[in-house]
């Protein structure tokens, strides 16, 4: 054997061994415990502050409020087992559960709940709008006094930024330093912003979770989430992109659950511009949109065509008697002719030297939006509207709205940031200097709507509230300050080993405590 040939053989063996080592099915070596429920979500947990990251703590069931919203939209008891409101609507009493205790073993008392609200209310996201004057502790009860009646108080009380924390959660400066809450899971390891490892809280007042431990990992990229689901590397993957559907179905590692959530993809128009100031032009554009086509071909779910602004899960706000928005080109052209927009030689309408045209801003964080934008481009052309599309960051819409340069925008709105959509409706359609920055009407106001929204918020008498809801929705349906294009459905993948998974369209809770493995 020559030295040269020896080296050749040694090198070959080395290279072979290395290649084999790199391909070892390490998954089995590093396999995770089967009793852990692995959840993958799109949201990263930035901090443990309830005012900024509270949703990341309430969704996996770490923190709880006095009340919670059920998947059907009903407000249900949580830490409070019952409640009552005074006849004038100014005093709300909540009876606490005697069995509830904090994760550190200390009891949940009226005094600790009051102390938690005292600390967290000043930085509350939504509950601040309820006009709470005082919170007091009485034996077994927490009492809220309001300055003026606030009809949607229970819905606002779901606010995760005021979920109840134990005194041990706060440092000497009153800041949250750790999360000691009451939910069915407690934090074992908080590896921010990557994820959380949770353990079952064995002394939870409600039904005990089946899984002794759970992990919640943040994976921002939608395709990566789809890969994780396809590889069977998570039990529940929240919000996988629609284009991955067929790939996931053929992978066979998980089933796909779809549920319509209170989110609407909307076409916004600047009503200060001559192309959109006349309601007839807005109605014409609305009639030119082929929602059924967009829903079926882009969203892959024909049920998502937004025939009215608010989607079916908001049952009290969704009305069967409204004429559904649908495509009618003849009616659209008739309206535009009436409004004085004449068709030019290039097929584009013109009025008083103004072209029936505009630039639409949208963004790619939601991958379907640019595709919908190009569909709209061709659909609106059919009525002589020349639409150009710019895809950028979503904030560009806000910037353009602020400086008045906005023509149109394709945006996405979560209409139930508070379970009662009155919160987003009030922000989007009844404020001059929009506090909700980029999803509401632009240079449009309606006195009747403003009065109805104020009246709705001021009463908790359902006999008064029901007709007000119909009137509010009716104005938006006829006036079209924004046009609903499609609703949105949440795609959740569930691994084959997992049984039934309740999906909360309000995105407040994953309800992990109700999840079991298949029998």
């Amino acid at each position: 054997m020559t030295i040269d040939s020896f080296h050749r053989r040694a090198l070959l063996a080395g290279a072979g061994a290395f290649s084999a080592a790199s391909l070892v099915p390490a998954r089995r070596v590093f396999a995770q415990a089967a009793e852990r429920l692995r959840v993958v979500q799109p949201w990263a947990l930035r901090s443990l502050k309830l005012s900024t990251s509270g949703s990341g703590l309430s969704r996996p069931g770490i923190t709880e409020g006095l009340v919670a919203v059920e998947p059907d939209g009903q407000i249900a008891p949580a830490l409070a087992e019952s409640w009552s409101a005074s006849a004038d609507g100014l005093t709300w009493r909540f009876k606490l559960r005697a069995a509830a205790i904090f994760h550190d073993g200390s009891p949940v008392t009226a005094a600790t709940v009051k102390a938690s609200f005292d600390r967290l209310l000043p930085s509350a996201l939504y509950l601040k709008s309820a006009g709470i004057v005082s919170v007091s502790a009485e034996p077994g009860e927490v009492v809220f006094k309001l300055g003026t009646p606030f009809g949607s108080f229970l819905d606002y009380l779901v606010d995760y930024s005021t979920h109840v924390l134990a005194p041990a959660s706060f440092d000497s400066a009153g800041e949250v330093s750790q999360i000691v809450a009451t939910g069915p899971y407690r934090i074992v390891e908080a590896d921010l912003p990557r994820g959380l490892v949770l353990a079952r809280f064995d002394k939870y007042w409600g039904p005990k979770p089946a899984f002794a431990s759970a992990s919640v990992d943040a994976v921002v990229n939608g395709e990566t989430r789809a890969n994780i689901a396809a590889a069977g590397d998570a039990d529940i993957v929240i919000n996988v992109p629609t284009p991955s559907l067929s790939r996931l179905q053929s992978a066979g590692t998980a089933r796909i659950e779809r549920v319509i959530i209170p989110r609407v993809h909307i076409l916004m128009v600047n009503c200060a511009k001559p192309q959109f100031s006349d309601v007839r032009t807005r109605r014409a554009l609305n009639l030119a949109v082929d929602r059924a086509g967009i829903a079926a071909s882009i969203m892959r779910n024909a049920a998502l065509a937004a025939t009215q602004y608010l989607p079916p899960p908001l049952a009290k706000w969704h009305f069967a008697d409204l004429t559904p928005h649908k495509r009618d080109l003849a009616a659209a052209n008739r309206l535009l002719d009436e409004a004085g927009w004449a068709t030019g030689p290039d097929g584009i309408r013109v009025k008083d030297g103004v072209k029936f045209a505009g630039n639409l801003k949208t963004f790619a964080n939601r991958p379907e939006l640019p595709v919908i934008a190009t569909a709209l481009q061709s659909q609106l052309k059919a009525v002589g509207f020349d639409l150009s599309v710019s895809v950028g960051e979503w904030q560009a819409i806000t910037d353009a709205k602020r400086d008045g340069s906005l023509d149109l925008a394709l945006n996405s709105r979560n209409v139930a940031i508070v379970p009662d959509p009155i919160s987003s409706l009030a922000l989007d359609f009844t404020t001059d200097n929009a506090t909700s920055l980029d999803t509401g009407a632009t240079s449009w106001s309606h006195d009747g709507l403003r009065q109805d929204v104020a009246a709705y918020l001021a009463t908790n008498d359902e006999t008064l509230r029901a007709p007000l809801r119909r009137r509010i929705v009716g104005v938006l349906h006829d006036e079209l300050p924004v046009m609903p294009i499609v609703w949105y459905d949440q795609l959740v993948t569930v691994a084959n080993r997992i049984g039934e998974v309740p999906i909360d369209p309000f995105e407040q809770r994953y309800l992990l405590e109700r999840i079991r493995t298949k029998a």
Partner: protein
Amino acid sequence: MDAVKALWDVAAPRLWQALITGWLLATLCFAFTHALPGDVALRVAAARIGDDRVTAEAADRIRQEEGLGLPVLDQYGAWMMRLVKGDLGRSLVSGKPVLAEIIDHGRYTLMLGTIGWLLSYLLALPIGFWAGWWPGGAVDRLSMGLAVVLASLPTFLVGIGLISAFALTLHWLPPAGFRTGAHMILPALTLALGLAAYSVRIVRNAVVEVRQAFYLTYARIRGHSATGAFRHHGIRNAAIPIVTFAALQFAYLVDGFVIVETLFNYPGLGDLLVRSLLARDVPVVVGAALLIGWTYAFINLAADLTCLKLDPRRSVRDAA
């Protein structure tokens, strides 16, 4: 003493260069992030509380609290003043000190980078050596072909290919994440293949060049065997271009991290940079740029010093 002086002669200008390069890089990043269109406070607010929940009120509060309404030059001045005191500031999004954020994410990147880099040389050294020892042979031609293919493929495509094969088809490895050692393999391999595509050719050429050098022929004439001559006289000479190149590849790594970490949802510096840029978290972007610049300069310095040590001619000169 001479050795220390020689070391200092190499190191001193590099240290100055590193300081100035770092400062320039950070200043440019500061200028660019501020020159991007749109309201910084609004983007920070969105990153803190979510796109759906951001309000003008929240943006205004952040503008007030973080001094984002001040003229850009004042903000730059304040940042420089803090930097001189060794303080990189706090993240606008998480509120954590920038240095803590960078260390937190940097340890993941360091681990991934080290494994990827080592893996690339585990591949490149034996294959490159073999190809260089028998130039024109089957291994040389095959490795050349593979190197061209891998070098011309963008990193994300290599990553997607590996995910498709090992995670989605064979189900051997997880496609993304960071919790276990198994999660490291695919991202490290993606980096390694990209690096090895270049280094295998450098190793091969270095070996070919040294094997043809007159001093090796002379060693053979003196009666050394081919391998003995190479071991005694060739390896150190061949190592010089390889070490220089290995250091240069760090730049590729920084580039590669951004893509690989995003693709594999790996929580390293690249992931932090992308997120911070999207959220306009200026202190983190600038701090990370500064530290990456300095690390790059430091690695170049280390490579220069290694070459100084390896270069027999320099050693002889120093000894004389």
